[in-house]
């Protein structure tokens, strides 16, 4: 279906994605919230998902890991509020390899006739978290680059 859009304005701690699907919001919500279903599609290439807990309700915990040739890594979090097709899903998100850098994910399912737009809105604790600035040699260079993008992008958006 439609191309994935990823929006990450430089200098903000947000990432937004949108993607259209030829399905109802109800079906997509099922794919996102039923443990047997989510394990079948959510994973990076060449990795299999090991689903741990997946309890979609206020305070319910979720955890899954990925295992592949390059190793294994896990994620976990908690759902908040009343997840539903209409309200969407609100959850915390933490990478086991980067504890404490928890982000907040909101996922919504917007019907548009025969299709549904799935929108994810991720809020990180800081711009640095958003930009994935784990300690590495590239930090300085990337930071400099981002400052320049920061200054330039508003002009280029037109």
């Amino acid at each position, binding site marked *: 279906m439609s191309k994935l859009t990823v929006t990450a304005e430089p200098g903000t701690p947000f*990432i937004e994605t949108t993607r259209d*699907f*030829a399905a109802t919001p109800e079906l997509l919500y099922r794919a996102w919230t039923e443990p047997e279903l989510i394990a079948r599609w959510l994973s990076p290439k060449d990795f299999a998902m090991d689903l741990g807990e997946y309890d979609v309700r206020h305070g319910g915990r979720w955890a899954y890991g990925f295992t592949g040739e390059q190793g294994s890594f896990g994620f976990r979090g908690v759902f908040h509020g009343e997840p539903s097709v209409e309200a969407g899903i609100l959850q915390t998100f933490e990478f086991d390899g980067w504890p404490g850098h928890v982000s907040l994910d909101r996922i919504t399912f917007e019907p548009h006739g025969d299709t549904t737009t799935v929108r994810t809105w991720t809020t990180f604790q800081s711009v640095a978290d958003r930009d994935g600035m784990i300690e590495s040699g590239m930090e300085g260079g990337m930071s400099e680059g981002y400052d320049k993008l920061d200054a330039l992008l508003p002009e280029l958006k037109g």
Partner: protein
Amino acid sequence: MQSTGQLNAVFGALADPTRRAILARLTAGDATVAELAAPFQISQPAISRHLKVLEQAGLISRRRRATARLSHLEAEPLREATAWLTGYRAYWEESYDRLDELIAELQSGQDDDTD
């Protein structure tokens, strides 16, 4: 998806204030070397050297119109020039492609149920 080399080229291209100003001018439309040089106290050959850097980074494309060479802004490499997001984008694209397949499967199952 951009390679490390391409990302370095983009950031290197952006590291110069004249080149950033050239890109800003090109948001208003394509321009010739003379038009781009006009606001600056530097020569057209100097502008041409900057344009070459921008072209090599994929940030502009160039074409001929009569005797002029026009530069055109290619904004996509700029939007993509955040390496971490490249991996993030790939993760979601691959996952969503699998989700397309899953929902097609579920929908055909639903159709069978209603027969």
